[in-house]
């Protein structure tokens, strides 16, 4: 069984590689390479998999999941400039892809010792028309 919780955060970013010049970055990233940055209302969907506990009827405490997402992602990233304020985006380009990988790695430890719930997928909507799914190095997103 899969269970998904949604969260939102707003942040700004610049997509550019420091080793490249403005023209090359603009070729790769388009307007997202604008050095002063721009922002998005990111929407995050965190999906857990597992079997519900027969006694509680729950796969994972949803309030706790909300707290985990807040602590691991929303609190450090909401209303921040990712490149300047959120590690590792001082050196890693904060594309939606890299953001999904980073969010996955921040969330994984919270479920490492859980008897039931496994982190199944992280979906990051950069806009309503563009999203990325990441299920870990071994995973294939559904």
């Amino acid at each position, binding site marked *: 069984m899969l269970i998904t919780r949604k969260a939102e955060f707003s942040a700004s970013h610049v997509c550019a590689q420091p080793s490249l010049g403005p023209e090359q970055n603009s070729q*790769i990233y388009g307007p997202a390479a604008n050095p002063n940055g721009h922002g998005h209302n990111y929407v995050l969907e965190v999906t857990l998999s597992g079997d519900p506990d027969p006694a509680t009827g729950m796969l994972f405490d949803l309030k706790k999941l909300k707290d985990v997402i807040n602590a691991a992602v929303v609190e450090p990233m909401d209303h921040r400039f990712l490149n300047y304020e959120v590690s590792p985006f001082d050196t890693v380009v904060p594309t939606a892809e890299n953001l999904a990988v980073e969010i996955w790695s921040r969330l994984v430890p919270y479920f490492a010792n859980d008897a039931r719930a496994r982190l199944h997928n992280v979906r990051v909507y950069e806009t309503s028309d*563009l999203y990325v799914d990441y299920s870990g190095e071994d995973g294939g997103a559904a």
Partner: protein
Amino acid sequence: MIHLTRRYHFAASHRLHSGHFSDAENRDLYGKCNHPFGHGHDYVLEVCVAGPLNPGTGQVINPRKLDKLVQESILKDFEHRNLNLDVPEFGDLVPTSENIVFVIRERLERNWGAAFPGAWPRLERIRLEETQRNVIELNI
């Protein structure tokens, strides 16, 4: 492996009517979708691609190249068109959402190699929303 999905929009009209059946059978089969002058939808097309993360760019795909491919392969011919009359594939093929998805796959695959010559990224899934309640998915 990362999956990236991009959503595109096009408005088009169609009429569901199959040459395999009589007029009465078509009316029975397709209901109001068989009305003779056709009708329209605001379609939403999702194109999902899969690939490894390029450590340099931090990307799976250049989304602007994908936009260009979808624009030239699909949207330029489908946007504000009558699918039955304006898109040659639907001359004899009923433009149900299922068939539209097959046509979209064929068009994307035909031009994929020219836009993305390497092994990655590859086309992973096509999803078409005819309305918010009618959704067709094809895993490639």
